């Protein structure tokens, strides 16, 4: 007989419980869920990538609307349960819906703790718990606020990194002397602080907040020592409290959280509770791994197949800030009977510390290099005696037992019960057996069937290694997408081999890399032409027949076979002479349409192909050159009026834009490259959606990149801040050169960034001045071959003249005779 199951709260814990339940007993319950949040179940731990812009909400949904429909679940979105009537066995929501239950599950999660300092209710003070908080932060970021994050724990730091990625100035205030003191020892906390500061996040420790300042809206934060930090956004991330009020009002036994036994049953037999809202054996939880364990236990009991109860174990902590590797597990406080083993590599920024007692690991902190985290965690969990390997233990698993193992062998050597995915508690045996029995071959399959690597994703590398070990050559983790049907190689391999083998022509590439067609196709030829041009400046001769028509005739083909012509207007500036020349050309060649483009210049549309050289000759005569509106190369540099005219301008944005355009025009890039320079953070040149953008500020120039506003919309990320215009030009050219050397053809900067990661880019063009200079010089070198106006060549030097006139004209007589 179907029973009525009502669930209060639709977070990660009950979501997982229902998945198990539907597997164990598909038809046992008719399920109704009430959720105060007006949405489906999503991966709360991935809110940080949403905040930083790396993911969208859709990416992190766990159960889409269809899931509820197909399991016959009624979901009341945006309904907060306000009362439980245990005698009548009903719950009632704030919108007046009452639902009867045979069994009730309370999973109300936790509530962020907001310290009750004066001003804590001002608009602009946010918590960091759900999607609404993230949306509010992103909105605040758009108005380019300055943010203060109170709390230097996991949540606070993820919030800070996300807000910084959104382009805000961020200060973290932390009460304790070092960051994340509950998970990290002071040395690791210090390294973490330094890494955050390098990204432009200010960290103030020992900061005791006295008051949030402001009258109608937040204006700053005042510390006990009198310091005032200005801010228009304050994020409170000092801690969470189990949401147990509803249960308490219903008369259930409640301490810090709702009291449950190891089967997750409350003091009322027909009510279970799980997730962050419960207290079990005096403990409350704040990470998903134990909650998922609870979910399984609770589901088994509901399905009438109770198994072993919930058992506590330590959950490792990882910080999900791209590029910062940190792992900690267990207890690492100093004590007289404990020893420690420490390894530091200052230049690599690596710090590892193990706390050992009676030859067993009690705690582990790894910073900078965390590959061995899982192994140490496993030794800790099992209480393995480490006496034998004491001397080499800290070097990690690959140093145990003779010669160093490669990572693959290390994974192979793990026991079947070694935990691979901490979030979902999936061990090695489960993964390998599922791969074999279900015939899985892709990472996505493994995620779908085992849940390993499906939550925070930090174990993806391990899972891939396991797949390699299990499947051998049948699994290729980097299964490359071939460039096109003419080769099995991907863009990355082709780029690498062109350099490594010194291939300097398209035929050489096709020969050496075993192309399967004689002369390629319309996909690979333009790509190869670009790679060769970028890799061998001055040596490689551009192959015009491998370019799309637009780049061959330096104008954009239109749907009727006519062309459009866009001359450069440097930085969007023009003059009466240029406008007059354009007007004359339009009249002389009867050009049907003239339009202001979205790129601050003028487009003449509908030019006949045979007129192109003459049109260009006239434009050249007035000093204008091709605007390359067709090019996988530098397009426009938009500017605003800056200090020249604007009352808010902080720097000469127009001048810098013109300088950049004059310096960089003509360079070919993997995909189009658009830039803009705004004179102040009001950003009238829309620099924050360009491939490279500059926001001038009083103290200099914020260099942004990786924006886009076409097929995808992406706000830029901040690369760095520089003090002078000269430095800005060098950084931008170096960045462009790095992209020219690494980008895949048609891969815009934002996709390239996603592929190679911010750290590698910063390492090359921000942190290491020698490298930056080298990239800059390579850019300058290649420019000497690139800055040739293609129009001039064709208008006066007869280059490619065959393009512009028919080879022959056949009249009636000739044809018919």
């Amino acid at each position, binding site marked *: 007989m179907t029973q009525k199951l009502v669930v209060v709260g639709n977070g990660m814990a009950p979501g997982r419980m229902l998945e198990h339940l539907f597997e164990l007993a598909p038809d046992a319950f008719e399920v109704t869920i009430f959720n105060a949040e007006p949405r489906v179940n999503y991966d709360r731990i991935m809110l940080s990538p949403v905040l930083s812009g790396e993911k969208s909400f859709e990416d992190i949904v766990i159960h889409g609307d269809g899931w509820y429909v197909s399991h016959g679940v009624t979901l009341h979105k945006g309904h907060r349960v306000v009362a439980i009537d245990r005698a009548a066995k009903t719950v009632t929501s704030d919108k007046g819906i009452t639902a009867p239950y045979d069994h009730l599950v309370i999973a109300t999660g936790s509530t962020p703790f907001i310290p009750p300092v004066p001003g804590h209710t001002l608009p602009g003070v946010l918590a960091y718990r759900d999607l609404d908080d993230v949306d509010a932060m992103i909105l605040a970021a758009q108005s380019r606020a300055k943010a203060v994050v109170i709390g230097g724990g996991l949540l606070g730091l993820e919030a800070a990194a996300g807000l910084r990625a959104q382009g805000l100035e961020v200060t973290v205030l932390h009460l304790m002397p070092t960051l994340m003191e509950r998970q990290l020892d002071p040395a690791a906390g210090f390294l973490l602080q330094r890494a955050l500061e390098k990204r432009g996040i200010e960290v103030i420790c020992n900061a005791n907040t006295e008051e949030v300042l402001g009258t109608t809206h937040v204006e700053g934060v005042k510390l006990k020592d009198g310091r005032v930090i200005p801010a228009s956004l304050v994020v409170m991330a000092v801690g969470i409290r189990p949401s147990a009020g509803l249960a308490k009002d219903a008369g259930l036994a409640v301490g810090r959280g709702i009291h449950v036994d190891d089967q997750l049953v409350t003091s009322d037999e027909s009510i279970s509770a799980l997730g962050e809202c419960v207290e079990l054996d005096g403990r409350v939880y704040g990470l998903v791994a134990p909650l998922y364990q609870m979910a399984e236990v609770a589901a088994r009991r509901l399905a009438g197949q109770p198994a072993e109860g919930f058992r506590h174990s330590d959950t490792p902590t990882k910080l999900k800030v791209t590029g910062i590797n940190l792992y900690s597990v267990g207890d690492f406080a100093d004590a007289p009977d404990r020893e420690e083993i420490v390894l530091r590599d200052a230049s690599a920024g690596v710090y590892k510390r193990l706390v050992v007692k009676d030859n067993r690991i009690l705690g582990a902190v790894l910073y900078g290099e965390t590959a061995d985290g899982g192994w140490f965690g496993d030794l800790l969990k099992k209480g393995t005696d480490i006496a034998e390997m004491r001397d080499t233990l800290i070097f990690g698993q690959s140093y145990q037992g003779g010669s160093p193992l490669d990572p693959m062998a290390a994974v192979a050597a793990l026991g079947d019960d070694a935990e691979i995915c901490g979030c979902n508690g999936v061990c090695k045996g489960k993964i390998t057996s599922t791969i074999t029995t279900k015939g899985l071959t892709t990472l996505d399959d493994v995620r779908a069937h085992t849940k390993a690597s499906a939550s925070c994703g930090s174990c993806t590398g391990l899972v891939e290694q396991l797949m390699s070990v299990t499947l051998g050559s049948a699994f290729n983790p980097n299964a490359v997408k071939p460039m096109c049907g003419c080769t099995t190689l991907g863009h990355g391999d082709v780029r690498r081999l062109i350099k490594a083998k010194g291939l300097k022509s398209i035929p050489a590439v096709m020969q050496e890399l075993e192309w399967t067609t004689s002369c390629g196709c319309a996909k690979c030829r333009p790509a190869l032409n670009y790679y060769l041009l970028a890799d061998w400046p001055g040596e490689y001769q551009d192959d015009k027949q491998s370019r799309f028509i637009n780049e061959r005739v330096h104008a954009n*083909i239109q749907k009727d076979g006519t062309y459009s012509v866009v001359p450069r207007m440097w930085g969007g500036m023009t003059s009466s002479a240029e406008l007059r020349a354009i007007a004359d050309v339009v009249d002389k060649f009867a050009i049907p349409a003239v339009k202001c483009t979205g790129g601050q210049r003028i487009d003449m549309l509908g030019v006949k192909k045979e007129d192109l050289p003459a049109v260009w000759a006239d434009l050249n005569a007035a000093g204008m050159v091709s605007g390359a509106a067709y090019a996988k190369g530098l397009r426009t540099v938009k500017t605003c009026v800056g200090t020249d005219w604007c009352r808010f301008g902080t720097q000469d944005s127009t001048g810098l834009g013109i300088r950049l355009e004059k310096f960089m025009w003509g360079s070919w890039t993997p995909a189009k490259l658009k830039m803009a320079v705004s004179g102040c953070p009001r950003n009238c040149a829309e620099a924050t959606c360009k491939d490279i953008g500059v926001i001038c500020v009083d103290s200099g120039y914020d260099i942004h990149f990786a924006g886009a506003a076409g097929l995808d919309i992406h706000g830029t990320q901040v690369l760095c801040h520089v003090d002078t215009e000269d430095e800005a030009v060098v950084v931008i050219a170096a960045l462009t050169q790095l992209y020219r050397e690494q980008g895949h053809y048609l891969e815009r900067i934002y996709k390239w960034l996603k592929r190679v990661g911010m750290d590698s880019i910063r390492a090359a063009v921000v942190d290491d001045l020698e490298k930056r200079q080298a990239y800059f010089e390579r850019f300058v070198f290649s420019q000497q071959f690139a800055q040739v106006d293609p129009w001039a060549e064709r208008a006066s030097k007869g280059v490619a003249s*065959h393009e512009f006139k028919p*080879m*022959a004209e056949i009249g009636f007589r000739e044809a018919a005779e």
Partner: protein
Amino acid sequence: MTMQGAWAAIGRLDDIPRRGARCVTSPLGRIAVFRTMDDKVFATEDRCPHKGGPLSQGIVHGGSVTCPLHSQVIALDTGLVQGPDEGRVRTFPVRVGADGALEILLEAEAFREAAE
């Protein structure tokens, strides 16, 4: 006027870049003349069967051309659109003389229509 078409001279092989095309105007409209990597020459109507794109402006690879407007691929010998797409462009016979002179054969039938 005869009912048979006549071979018309249209220039020389070297007027067309390898893996390129030129066009020829005619009473039938524009004709695209292609030269492949291995010096074979083909002629088609300069109108893509898809939406009329000028095929002479496309990229020539092997014995095919990729249309510049929406990238359909057309076999130069048969005029057939390749792959999942459908359609066919008209083709015309071309011959290359020993000295590299090119001649094209336009069908009389079509000319009569055009001339009338």
